[in-house]
């Protein structure tokens, strides 16, 4: 009976999540591209050998990881600060909370288009401001040094509210008398943050970290609209590279290999995170 109730949902879940992985495993052993007339032809491990020697794949892997670590790190710091601010009680807090959530709720492609205009060289407002100060304008989206930071900025702007909300929810679970007792014993507020808030918040920080890292490692929408992966592939992510292989180069076999390769890297990252957590707990 209960299996019957679950069956429709589980079937759709298997079709959407599991089947693609199985299909990629098969497709990564085939050549299916314009050269084969878009028909699958078995090629053994050729796609995987190509992946291991593909400088662009590894460059994208490094770029994606760099983007994920830097932006999630920034989001945690900023999110913590915002959560602390929203945790205090003051008038209008509810309205401020929902207004700060706006960047998170907007479609990524909408705000990416907005950032393109804000970061425009030389007509965007940031460069207009630099000009007012007598500084030279900066080619935010055309320089290989600046473009990835622009992507980090736009992502931090968009997803920090999510992190802040999670941490805020965690803070509201901490009983207030802990702080009162701490203050009675002469503890200072700053010490309370380090000794009470942060340790008790650790599970929430961990959840936010896992969610955000996984999403950031799959970054696609933002990069596609903000930079298109450029300049000179300096902001290209793994997902965008796999997308280009399928939709632009029509090389489906290799695209599937890239997706599965990215999946393996994700698993490795998840495993590292779990092991780090275990090790912390064992040593504590």
């Amino acid at each position, binding site marked *: 009976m209960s299996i019957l109730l679950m069956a*429709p949902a589980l079937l759709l879940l298997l079709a959407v*999540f599991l089947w693609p992985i199985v299909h990629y495993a098969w497709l990564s052993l085939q050549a299916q591209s314009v050269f084969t007339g878009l028909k699958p032809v078995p090629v053994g491990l050729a796609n995987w050998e190509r992946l291991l020697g593909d400088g662009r794949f590894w460059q994208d892997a490094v770029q994606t990881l760099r983007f994920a670590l830097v932006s999630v790190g920034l989001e945690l710091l900023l999110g913590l600060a915002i959560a602390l601010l929203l945790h205090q009680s003051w008038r209008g807090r509810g309205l401020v909370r929902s207004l700060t959530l706006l960047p998170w709720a907007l479609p990524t492609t909408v705000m990416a*288009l907005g950032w393109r205009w804000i970061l425009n060289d030389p007509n965007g407002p940031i460069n207009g401001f630099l000009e*007012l100060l007598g500084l030279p304008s900066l080619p935010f989206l055309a320089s290989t040094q600046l473009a990835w930071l622009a992507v980090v900025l736009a992502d931090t702007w968009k997803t920090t509210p999510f992190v802040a909300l999670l941490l805020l929810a965690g803070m509201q679970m901490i009983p207030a008398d802990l702080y009162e007792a701490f203050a009675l014993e002469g503890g200072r507020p700053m010490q309370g943050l380090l000794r009470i808030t942060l340790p008790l918040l650790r599970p929430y920080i961990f959840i936010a970290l896992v969610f955000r890292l996984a999403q950031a490692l799959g970054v696609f929408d933002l990069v596609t609209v903000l930079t298109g992966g450029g300049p000179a592939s300096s902001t290209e992510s793994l997902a965008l590279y796999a997308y280009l292989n399928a939709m632009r180069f029509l090389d489906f076999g290799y695209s599937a290999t890239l997706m599965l390769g990215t999946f393996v890297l994700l698993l490795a990252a998840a495993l590292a995170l779990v092991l780090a957590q275990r090790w912390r707990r064992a040593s504590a």
Partner: protein
Amino acid sequence: MSSQPCHRSGSRLRISLVILLLLWSLAPMLWQLYSSLRTPESLLAGLAGLGGGWTLINYTAVLQANPPFWRYLLNSSVVGALSTLLTLALAIPCAYSLSRRGGLLKVVVGGGLLAAAVFPYVLLFLALLQVARQLGLANNLLALCLPYAGLSLPLAVLLLQAAFADMPVELEENAILERFTLWQRLRWILLPLMAPSVVSTGLLVFLFSWNEFPIALTWLSRSELQTLAPAMARIAGSSVFTVPFGPFAAATVLGSLPLLALLLIFQRQIVAGLTQGAIKG
């Protein structure tokens, strides 16, 4: 909380921090609003062109484009609403039976749902596209509900399962004694009590479907079928407008307004859904 004298300087600091926070969150959107109302000449004049040059020309350009911009908003709304209904219809029975049993199955399904909820789904797009082409579902707006429901299920089931688990067992036992069928118990007893969780879950699914990009981008090639997210990317890549930033900004504003309204009306439910999802899941 208290009326200690040291709180006065504290509240001044807090006010400046709140203003800073609002600036950080809203300034980019306000700049879009401002740009959308400016003539092309004043946009190119940069900050020096702050005076004069107000216009609605950008909005008429976007709304009279082919297809008009409201079409994308309509498409997104239809797909969002149907995906939400389909997801809830599948997730509610699944969550119910998951919450009413223990053992290995629950652990396996729960773990799988958790992993799927975190998985960056963009990696699935190629396989899903190939299925869609084989089944003739490409360029079918309503067919998008299938992958959207599938991708939303992990979070939806986890959220609703937690809500079911919070319901007291006696409530249902009494209803069974009264010979209520399962459907009656769900419809008249459990779901009304869980309404807040159902609404939060539905809102999160709606937001996801409204904002989804890679699948909509690859499934729909006919521009009049496109949803908002791929339409924005197409507008970004097109060179229809000579000075495109005004129309871009108008499109951003029009694309943001429905969500701003949704957020202001349902902020409590959205916040509850988001935090519950992370804490219980």
